[in-house]
């Protein structure tokens, strides 16, 4: 398959309603409203679209789980997850900024498909720029009764919490609580926000709905490869010449995403590619020798990793893998919501052991202890936060064990300050620096 850019979501970028309509914008909304909700859902089922937030659940199936209003006589809600916070992923930022009307059209079509009059877009608090673009676009749409109909769209801004990207934590936060995940079941489709049937979909998923209706479910399902149909906006960052978002058909070689001139453009300064994080910092790492793999669900699953939220982070030969472990672990420690003990305590212990390893203070037993701590987080929490941190860090040890051992044997970091991740100040460490308030002073 050629590694070409194929834009359905990012095509004809405009923030203006008039310009969007001039290229056929909102025509699919009118078409969808002329169909029954079940007919719209059928198109999505036929398209084989899977959610673009990271969990890759079939979108049409998710919609079909919503019970009828006879079964559960409560309002239905559509909640859009625009809390993009996964390190390495910045695609939703670009989608909201460049094609806000395609996104809004997708929301309105989805609201029709799941019989909802209430839409909440939960957008991360840091995204001031995308929020303003989206707000301006929504203001235009609200003035047009033929577009907004009787649907109410509320833009709800978060306030800085990675965990709110997890759908039940997002719902808790939307309800005005601390963003801590709920126990499932019940799943949001049965009891989500305000105890009502709720569909939670990602920004890119929403922006993909109008093009699917435009070209038809069957045509969309011919793009990409088995189990990874259509297009995907991939965020490429780190040690590449052209960091950016590229919409491609899944299945193209990961090597091309990184090295093709019109995509990543290769590693700067002719350096060797050491490792690639393929789907955001919570995914299992690949070595530089493992990039001759299709960038799709099945191919990456065979290497025990995932597309996740499609954030490809490239690391060149200078990067110390223990330092990477420290920084990734610090992130998850900081963002753990504190609800489940294995995650709250485990991520703290992971960071502590990794820092000792990096400083050259750790023994071989502590390396085993690190893996033991990882193992004791896996599968023991309500949400995947701690588990993904543990799996990611364990994969650095599995694939670069000799580097971890070298830190122990040499009683210090073999890379020293030549690695770009040397002594990077993470927020969790910054907070530790701030002196405690003296009582009674």
């Amino acid at each position, binding site marked *: 398959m050629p590694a070409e850019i194929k834009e359905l979501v990012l095509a004809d970028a405009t923030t203006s309603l008039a310009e969007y309509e001039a290229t056929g914008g909102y025509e699919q909304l009118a078409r969808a409203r002329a169909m029954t909700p079940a007919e719209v859902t059928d198109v999505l089922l036929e398209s084989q679209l899977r959610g673009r937030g990271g969990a890759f659940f079939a979108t049409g199936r998710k919609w079909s789980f919503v019970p009828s209003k006879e079964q559960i006589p409560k309002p239905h809600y559509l909640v859009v997850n625009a809390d993009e916070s996964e390190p390495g992923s910045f695609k939703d930022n670009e989608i909201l900024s460049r094609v806000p009307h395609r996104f809004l059209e997708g929301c309105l079509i989805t609201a029709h498909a799941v019989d909802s009059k209430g839409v909440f877009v939960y957008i991360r608090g840091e995204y*001031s720029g995308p929020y303003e673009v989206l707000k301006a676009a929504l203001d235009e749409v609200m003035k047009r009764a033929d577009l907004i109909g009787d649907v109410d769209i509320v833009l709800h*801004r978060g306030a800085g919490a990675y965990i709110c990207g997890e759908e039940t934590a997002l719902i808790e936060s939307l309800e*005005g609580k601390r963003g801590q995940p709920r126990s499932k079941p019940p799943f949001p489709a049965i009891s989500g926000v305000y105890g009502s049937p709720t569909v939670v979909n990602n920004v890119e998923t929403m922006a993909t709905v109008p093009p699917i209706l435009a070209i038809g479910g069957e045509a969309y399902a011919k793009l990409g490869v088995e189990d990874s149909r259509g297009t995907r906006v991939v965020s490429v960052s780190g040690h590449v010449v052209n960091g950016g978002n590229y919409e491609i058909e899944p299945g193209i070689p990961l090597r091309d995403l990184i090295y093709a001139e019109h995509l990543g453009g290769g590693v700067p300064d002719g350096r060797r590619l050491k490792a690639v994080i393929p789907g955001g910092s919570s995914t299992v790492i690949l070595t530089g020798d493992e990039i001759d793999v299709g960038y799709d669900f099945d191919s990456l699953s065979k290497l025990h990793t995932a597309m996740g939220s499609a954030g490809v982070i490239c690391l060149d030969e200078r990067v110390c893998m223990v330092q990477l472990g420290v920084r990734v672990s610090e992130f998850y420690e900081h963002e753990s919501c504190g609800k489940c003990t294995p995650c709250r305590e485990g991520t703290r212990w992971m960071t502590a052991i990794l820092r000792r390893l990096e400083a050259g203070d750790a023994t071989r037993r502590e390396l085993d202890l690190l893996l033991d701590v990882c193992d004791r987080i896996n599968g023991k929490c309500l949400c995947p936060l701690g588990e993904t941190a543990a799996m990611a860090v364990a994969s650095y040890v599995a694939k670069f064990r000799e580097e971890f051992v070298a830190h122990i044997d040499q009683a210090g970091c073999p890379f020293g300050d030549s690695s770009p991740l040397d002594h990077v100040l993470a927020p969790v460490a910054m907070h530790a620096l*701030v002196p405690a308030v003296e009582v009674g002073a």
Partner: protein
Amino acid sequence: MTALYDAIQAERAKYPEGSRSAVLPALRLAQDEHGWLSPDVMREVADALEVTPAFVASIATFYDQFNTEPVGEHLVEVCTNVSCALYGAQQVLESFESDLDCHAGETSADGKVTLRTIECLGGCGWGTIVAVDHRYHLYVKPEDTAAIVEELRAG
């Protein structure tokens, strides 16, 4: 009643009656007005939402963007997550520390600028990302920090 009270009631009207959904927008409005969420400000928000101050405090302390201690007039937040760090975010941070003569987590002596590190801002391909009063600056290099600081001090 104050303008803040009225603005909070407008936020409450967007959500189903009896829900507490307006707490995040209310705290954002309060912080925009006062700069930080002192116990008195949290009490004002609690009264407007008809909830207890303890509930408001439990929310304000959970989310990173809420300041529960005084901050400077301006906020500089340097992303030091993996991708930005690979581009040299630590050197950018140290350059700000030197320009402002304070450490990350502190406010400059003139009270003008609070400097912080922050987790992934979602601009990984365009790093180092620095949010200056919540506006993203892309591709920031150590040599760019002096001009940013100068502008903030002048403003």
